[in-house]
């Protein structure tokens, strides 16, 4: 009797799957199939290995909820996990050299299979943000950061926030569209400090 029920459940399940293919499959089924398809559709090349297709929890949740309302608990969970992962500077200093920060913010190379992995990555902040007014070639994916320090105040709190934001943007807004530069080892701690200075040093052209 029990065996029979199990057998029917299995048959029923298989039938449901088949019907599922003929009609609309569930979202989870489509996700599983898409993931499988992608694994078969890419070649490793240079530094870009196939494990780049493995999503962490944040990426998984943010993909799942694109175009839908992100439930409050999910958003809070993403922010908590990412905030906790930030590695704060051991010396307690957030500000480096804004001149070096400006160069880093201009450079776009890094982590593409066409990039030399031995060279340090750039931050490419200008791809998405307006920063120093001299640079007219800036993108608009992110908000303008012109006069950032001047407007927010040159406080320890703001410095810390900017450092954290660049290290792991997901800690401050779930499903942020800004890369997690520290968390994902795109930039080093020293590079991040230099970019923080570009935003937060009163002498930086960003604040002129």
């Amino acid at each position: 009797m029990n065996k029979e029920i199990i057998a029917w459940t299995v048959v029923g399940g298989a039938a449901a799957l088949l019907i599922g293919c003929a009609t609309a499959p569930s979202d989870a089924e489509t996700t599983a199939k898409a993931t499988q398809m992608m694994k078969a559709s890419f070649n490793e090349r240079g530094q870009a290995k196939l494990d780049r297709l493995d999503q962490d929890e944040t990426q998984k949740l943010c993909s799942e909820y694109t175009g839908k309302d992100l439930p409050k608990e999910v958003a809070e969970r993403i922010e908590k996990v990412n905030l906790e992962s930030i590695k704060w500077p051991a010396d307690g200093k957030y500000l480096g050299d804004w001149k070096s920060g400006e160069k880093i913010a201009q450079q776009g190379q890094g982590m593409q299979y066409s990039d030399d992995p031995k060279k340090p990555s750039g931050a490419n902040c200008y791809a998405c943000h307006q920063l120093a007014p001299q640079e007219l070639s800036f993108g608009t994916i992110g908000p303008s950061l012109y006069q950032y320090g001047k407007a927010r105040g040159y406080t320890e709190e703001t410095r810390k926030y900017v450092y954290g934001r660049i290290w792991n943007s997901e800690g401050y807004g779930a499903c942020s569209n800004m890369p997690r530069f520290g968390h994902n080892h795109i930039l080093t701690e020293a590079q991040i400090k230099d970019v923080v200075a570009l935003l937060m040093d009163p002498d930086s052209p960003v604040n002129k």
Partner: protein
Amino acid sequence: MSNPRWRAFARIAVLSSSLAVAIVALAQTSAVDEIAKYRAALQDGNPAELWEARGAELWKQPRGPNKVSLEKCDLGLGPGVVKGAYTQLPRYFADADRVMDLETRLVWCMVKLQGFSEADAVKNHFGGPGRKSDNEAFVAFVTSESRGIPMNVAATHPKEQEMYRLGEKMFFFRGGPYDFACASCHGVDNQRIRLQDLPNLTTKEGAQKAYSTWPAYRVSQGELRTFQWRLNDCFRQQRFPELKFTSDASIALTMFLAKNSNGAAYDAPAIKR
């Protein structure tokens, strides 16, 4: 200067230097407006014509171990029908039991009709300096035969519908060290990276405008680029591994964008930055 090749080269030289000046001078106004002007000015002389002409020649040539031409290749509207075929691709092909885009179907025809090995048929799919690509020439020729015809991808077969759904999923799939999905760069109106305008491919108008203008002669590269190339290069910028030519993922994304562009008057090979 009567040789069309030289005329085209002269135009490109003028185009790229004045384009560089235009971009610096214009800085913040949309570079696309300027490019639109160049496109209008060049309408009677897009260098893509050189690829179209070469493709038309190659199409008729007996080639491969079987020494036959591609004139019997079935692009979906029956053997040998090229006119309008591109506007209905990707589609399900019963003979291959697979949904195929144009480039995948061309490989299929080279293997099945002309007797090329799969490896030979996919060789050199994207050209470069001193390295001509037959794929680019075929694509230029076939797509040019759809100019002016509205995009009309059916996506009614279950396998076509599945491809569409998978393509849509992939479009929103965030991954890699930069957390990028296609949607990170193509999900909002009027955004740009540096000065390059990013089409919002999640809207009908955005998809129509982008899809109906590929393939395109790329001024910056001196090469006619195909849709497989476009996807490949965006995945590079997305920091993903390398998209395999004619892979299912490439076909799924093409299906998603092609179907969303339905109704647009097809207008390529175009000319772009």
